[in-house]
């Protein structure tokens, strides 16, 4: 296992360093850019027919606030150009038909791997969430209800669970808007704790795209916007997926 890990790391070492970047990352070659458009990424990401189970659907554990806001956004998917993103048990299912660039694809496939936000399978215990995406505004809204398994202090969600939900929403948005794949940095200013079982709304937007990087910001608050839980920003690196 470690040998494979080192091999992956050594492979990364063969890549050129971006000026000023801490990490060795593949340079995007404009000449061979995949030319995948946002529309094609969205249609691949949101297949009309699929065998993969979509976990981003209401269940008995959802609080009234979450259900209510979910219905509001469902209406917006019919009228205002919003799209409900499906949520599968692993990102492999989301990029079905595509694969990571060779430099990063060295690590072995683990059949029992799951994305962290769908790792807790008991309804209501973990990351209950659904993300709505607006392509023309380059924005996402994530409805997040942390369950008792995400508890830090008694009755409130652990800070890391909110960081995870932010990274996840940033990452899906960055990918759909501009093929952003790797988190380069994330910066969070915590304001208030989220009570377990209550709804937190994450509003994410893409602020700019520059030098192969996407800059996103997020404000996490209650549905009525009266309490701000946290403000954060993230920078993602663009990477093209390759055909399998």
């Amino acid at each position, binding site marked *: 296992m470690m040998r494979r890990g080192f091999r992956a790391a050594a492979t990364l070492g063969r890549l050129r360093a971006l000026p000023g970047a801490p990490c060795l990352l593949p340079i995007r070659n404009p000449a061979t850019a995949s030319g995948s458009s946002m529309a094609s990424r969205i249609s691949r990401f949101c297949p009309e027919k699929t065998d993969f189970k979509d976990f981003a659907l209401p269940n008995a554990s959802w609080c009234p606030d979450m259900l209510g806001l979910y219905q509001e956004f469902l209406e917006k998917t019919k009228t205002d150009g919003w799209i409900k993103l499906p949520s599968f048990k692993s990102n492999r299912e989301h990029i079905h038909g595509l694969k990571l660039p060779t430099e990063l694809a060295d690590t072995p496939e683990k059949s029992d791997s799951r994305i962290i936000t769908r790792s*807790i399978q008991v309804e209501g215990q973990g990351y209950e969430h659904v993300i709505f995406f607006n392509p023309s505004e380059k924005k996402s809204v994530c409805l997040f209800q942390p369950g008792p*398994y995400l508890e830090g202090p008694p009755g409130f969600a652990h800070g890391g669970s909110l960081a995870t939900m932010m990274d996840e929403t940033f990452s899906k948005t960055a990918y759909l808007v501009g093929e952003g794949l790797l988190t380069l940095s994330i910066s969070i200013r915590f304001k208030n704790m989220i009570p377990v079982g209550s709804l937190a709304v994450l509003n994410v937007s893409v602020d700019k795209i520059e030098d192969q990087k996407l800059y996103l910001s997020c404000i996490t608050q209650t549905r009525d916007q009266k309490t701000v839980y946290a403000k954060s920003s993230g920078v993602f690196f663009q990477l093209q997926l390759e055909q399998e």
Partner: protein
Amino acid sequence: MLGRGAARALGALRGLRGGAPPARSLGLSRRLLSFKKVLDKDHFLPKPCWGKDMRRLFDQFTKKCEDGSWIQLPSYEHISSQRSQDFSAFIHAYFPSASEVINEKLSQAQLFTRGFEDGMGFEYVMFYNEAEKRIVCVFQGGPHLQGMPGFFHGGATATIIDATVGMNAIVSGGIVMTANLNINFKSPIPLCSTVLVNSQLDKIEGRKLFVSCKVQSIDEKILYTEATSLFIMLEPKKKKYDLKEAVLNPLPA
């Protein structure tokens, strides 16, 4: 309203002791006594799901504890299982209207590490060096922490960093509140690997604690992630509940 770090701090407070006077400094003999008490518990011994690297590092750091310069910190679960009565009294003082909710939640409370079957999520042990104000967390992440296929999710890394710097702030500052957390991802971490999360208290300015952190491969050759954080001490003059004491000298279970 209290911030996120207070939440974490309060969680650790579950191990409050009733009548014992708070300790002001840890002498060598006291640390060895803690260490011995700590070794007596089941959950401080290697678990079957731990890989070779995790066991090796656990042994390495446990050896470092022998001279008292390092101590193994009790697991979050261990702290939380103690004296829930003292704890709920304390919580009531901070959240007067929340006591019923808290008690109800306590009964079904799961800590973030508990949501996973053994070996599938977060497996970790923390060691503390008081002289260097350093906490090293040996962390083995499982396959249910995936983000990009084959790698840890950025949030999983953020979570273990948050837990480590948070603990560092608690042992130095007692009850604390996370204000900021800034993480730079240098290299994606391969799924299921064991890494070292090395956190350092950089300075204390009044009620602010600055803690930085690096996530490295176990041979310290690869730097995966760097982070800085800011914590605020809540009511530093309030010595009635010594959180540091609860963490560093837990009662036997």
